């Protein structure tokens, strides 16, 4: 079958791969252009997938037919369910992935889907400024297409830093797409972000007997409904702690750090700081935990999670060897920082189409996010929408109320960000509803709308839904129902009381139990949400200038002169945070204190 329309994806990272696969599922043919075909789906930072909120996002990717979930199951080395004792609303499935096998698995998925991979460095787009017709390569070749997805990651104008050195590149040993960066700057407002990574150490040179073992969780779990076998725990991880001498190594060499010396202008993530940052910002803390994670089952290297640094090589050695168990450790690859370009706020909308264009989309770090999972989910949306636009359909947007994907897109588009964006469960107002157990139920309608759920994937989800509804019916019996809300009652307990549950799919029963548990609270949140929106028909309060909204928003409101809060929110420059402040201010003025 040859599709008549082609989506060209620029970049072969986690966003690019999901974009190409989604475009294909949505009915277009897909071409993936990358300068490094051997580095597709690489994990240039920590070899792990999932976590709180992020794990749920992987489930959402699976529910939309994406590949990351199956990849996580297939290449898992160790599984942990984060927050296991804190209630299923915030469970965070996380695996150590085999970072050598994962790219092979993804490459297999691409080949199996019939996606053409073109080796080349994209320097510009042909056509424009609104409708694009091809991607121009550095060797002069053109890759023609009907829609385009930019998934450039850290490669867009990428600059690497280590100590006093600085050189162009998107990752260690990788190229930098400088020309594409200059080309995009002619059309869009671009800002700089920064991130970094930790050194890799030869595992045999670490005295692991001196370290704490990080235990895995022996539970049956699978990210993908398609996986026959779920995650596996094959490898041990270890935990070490830095000490005063590690911090001293940083302090004594502060002047040689490109970060502390402010040679890097880009903004880095607060939640994933470099070790230099930790030492300088929290001087009272003498010890920080360091996780030693296997890179692969077949690799002799370990990733030193928590020691992200861009210090010169001799300082990296001094830092590392100061840690108990690392006295003789050998570094195989040094840590470094990378600064890259991303599109500024307002340059893309909720369909991930770029402002003022008709067929150009973007996903991943170019939109300001960080993390493999965030990139994958955005890639999936951008790829599917690119295909839809190419095929003459309308592009779709996810809903903030029903998915983390929707929360993320809304945060990026409506709120705007000022540092690399990571998904947290608390970013979702109705986090009690956005859980990993019900991802397939929540995403179903978006999947169908986007046209990415078809054939066996769709019937798989439908079967799950059916089983879930059957379980729900059984659990509506009052006694069972009240038991669902007790934290100590497990699925097994309920099955012992109602054997009919045993006939049903385990995961569907679990999801139905968790649904009963949170139902009341979820409804309560919904009511609050609706109540808050109801205030939006209030007039813009006269004292809006003093309400604490941003100066930008004040100017926008003065210029636009909107009557109601809702109209104000429609103005460019008024962000969601301003809306919250303004609504509260308006309510306080109307309330009788």
């Amino acid at each position: 079958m040859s599709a008549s329309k082609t989506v060209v994806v620029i970049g072969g990272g986690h966003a690019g791969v999901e974009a190409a696969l989604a475009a294909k599922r949505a009915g277009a043919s897909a071409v993936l252009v990358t300068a490094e075909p051997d580095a597709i789906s690489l994990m240039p930072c920590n070899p792990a997938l999932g976590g709180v909120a992020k794990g749920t996002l992987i489930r959402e990717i699976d529910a939309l037919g994406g590949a990351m979930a199956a990849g996580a199951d297939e290449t898992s080395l160790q599984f942990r369910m984060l927050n296991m004792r804190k209630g299923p609303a915030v469970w965070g499935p996380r695996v150590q992935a085999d970072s050598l096998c994962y790219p092979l698995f993804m490459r297999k998925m691409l080949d199996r889907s019939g996606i053409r991979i073109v080796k080349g460095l994209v320097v510009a787009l042909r056509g424009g400024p609104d409708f694009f017709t091809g991607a121009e390569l550095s060797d002069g070749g053109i890759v023609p297409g009907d829609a385009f997805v930019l998934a450039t990651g850290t490669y867009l104008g990428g600059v690497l830093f280590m100590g006093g050195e600085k050189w162009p590149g998107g990752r260690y040993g990788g190229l930098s797409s400088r020309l594409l960066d200059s080309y995009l700057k002619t059309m869009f407002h671009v800002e700089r972000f920064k991130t970094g990574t930790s050194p890799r150490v030869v595992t045999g040179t670490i005295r692991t007997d001196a370290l704490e073992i990080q235990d895995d969780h022996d539970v049956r779990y699978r990210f993908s409904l398609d996986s026959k076998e779920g995650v596996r725990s094959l490898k041990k991880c270890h935990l070490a702690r830095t000490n005063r001498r590690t911090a001293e190594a940083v302090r004594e060499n502060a002047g040689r750090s490109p970060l502390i010396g402010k040679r890097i202008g880009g903004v880095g993530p607060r939640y994933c700081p470099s070790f230099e940052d930790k030492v300088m910002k929290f001087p009272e803390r003498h010890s920080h935990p360091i996780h030693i994670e296997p890179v692969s089952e077949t690799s002799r290297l370990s990733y030193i999670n928590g020691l992200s640094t861009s210090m010169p090589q001799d300082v990296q050695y001094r830092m590392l060897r100061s840690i108990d168990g690392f006295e003789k450790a050998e570094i195989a690859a040094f840590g470094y920082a990378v600064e890259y370009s991303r599109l500024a706020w307002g340059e893309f909308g909720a369909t991930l189409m770029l402002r003022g264009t008709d067929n150009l989309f973007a996903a991943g770090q170019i939109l300001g996010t960080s993390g493999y999972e965030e990139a994958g989910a955005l890639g999936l949306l951008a790829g599917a929408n690119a295909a839809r636009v190419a095929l003459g359909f309308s592009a779709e947007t996810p809903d903030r109320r029903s998915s983390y994907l929707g929360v993320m897109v809304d945060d990026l588009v409506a709120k705007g960000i000022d540092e690399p964006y990571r998904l947290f469960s608390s970013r979702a107002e109705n986090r009690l509803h956005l859980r990993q157990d019900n991802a397939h139920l929540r995403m179903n309608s978006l999947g169908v709308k986007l046209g990415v759920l078809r054939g066996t994937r769709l019937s798989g989800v439908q079967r799950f839904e059916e089983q879930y509804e059957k379980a729900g019916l059984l659990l509506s019996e009052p006694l069972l129902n009240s038991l669902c809300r007790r934290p100590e009652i497990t699925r097994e307990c309920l099955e012992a009381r109602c054997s009919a549950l045993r006939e049903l799919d385990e995961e569907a029963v679990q999801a139905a139990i968790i649904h009963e548990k949170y139902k009341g609270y979820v409804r309560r949140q919904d009511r609050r949400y609706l109540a808050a929106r109801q205030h939006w028909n209030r007039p813009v309060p006269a004292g809006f200038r003093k309400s604490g909204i941003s100066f930008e928003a004040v100017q926008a409101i003065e210029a636009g002169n909107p009557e109601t809060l809702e109209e104000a929110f429609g103005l460019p420059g008024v962000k969601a945070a301003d809306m919250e402040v303004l609504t509260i201010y308006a309510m306080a003025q109307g309330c009788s204190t």
Partner: protein
Amino acid sequence: MTAANDVIAAIATPHGLSALAVIRLSGQGCSSLVECAAGLTRGRLKGMRRARLSFPNGGDMVALGWPPGKSYTGEEMVELICHGIPERVSAVYTVLIDAGARPALPGEFTSRAWKNGKLSDHEIFALAAAVETGTETEPIPSGLIRLQTEIGSALEALEGEIEFQDEACLSSVENDDVFLRCMREADMLVKNMHRIQRTESVYISGPVNAGKSTLFNTLGGKSIALVHPEPGTTRDGARTELRIGERRFILIDTPGFGGEGIDRDALETVMEMITEHDTIVWLSPDGKDAPALLRGKSKRLIQAVSKSDTHQISGLRLSSVTGEGIAALKEKLFLRSIVPIEEKAMQIAALIREANRHVIEEPAIAASLLGEAEAAVEELTGCRHGLHAVERALSVLCVGK
């Protein structure tokens, strides 16, 4: 296009003749702008410095310079202190604008101070309220602010526990402590309800000769307003304090509508005085509804029929002669002002208590309930924490694998 820290200038003292006037500048490069404009050597005003200088047509003056971080706005700032002769002041101001300073927007210095962390949200709110309504506004009760802060810290702790349990190097967040403080503050709030009061304005309005001033004197218990059977006697709004229970109100008499000639002005005067959060008592001797214009102005409008001793029209019947309906009106005013906030305080306390029960086993439920309590408190204080709980947690926790 205005940058976030471009140089802004404003005359900081009121217009008119005075001994001294102050012109203020803030923003990156403002000291060199003044140095250039006044022909001083470069760098003369850098840091905490004082200099004498003179401007064409502006005479001699003193300039004070603040380095970034030390000033009111947190930016580089210069204050020029000159003689308060209006012509001179505006001449100096014009030179500064010509030199590249931008006239500041209303509240822009303060907004910069807030952005740069020099003023808290609470301070901004109190300041805004004070500027808006003169000195009559009481600041937000400190108990309410403490409660808001405590709920904020409890949420921060919870979010830190949920998001970063595996990666943060925390020495275990002491949720219990935070929650105890939270509950204590909520209980105090309920107990001290009577201390929470913001003086409310109650406008008595109605057609001419409806008996507004008579009601005013009856309620206020004094003869302040000039009462006369001749319609249109009241020209300016007399005001007095009215106490009902533990609540305080400012009672304001207004000129009547519906006469001839001068009454257009009367309507305009009244409309200008009243804001949307004031209470209006609409008084009419014939039971007619308040004009739409007035009804649109305030959602809190009480309609009453005056001179009930002379007719049988139904409604909230008031008579200053027999005293009919006066107690009912007082009760209405009292209930409207106190019930929502008292109820809310109890709701908040209950939410915090329930949240506390879920902290260990279901922190997400606890956070949801606490979020609801936070939103309720925000409604009372009118100020919202600019940052999301998880972002606040990030600024105090050393997080990151």
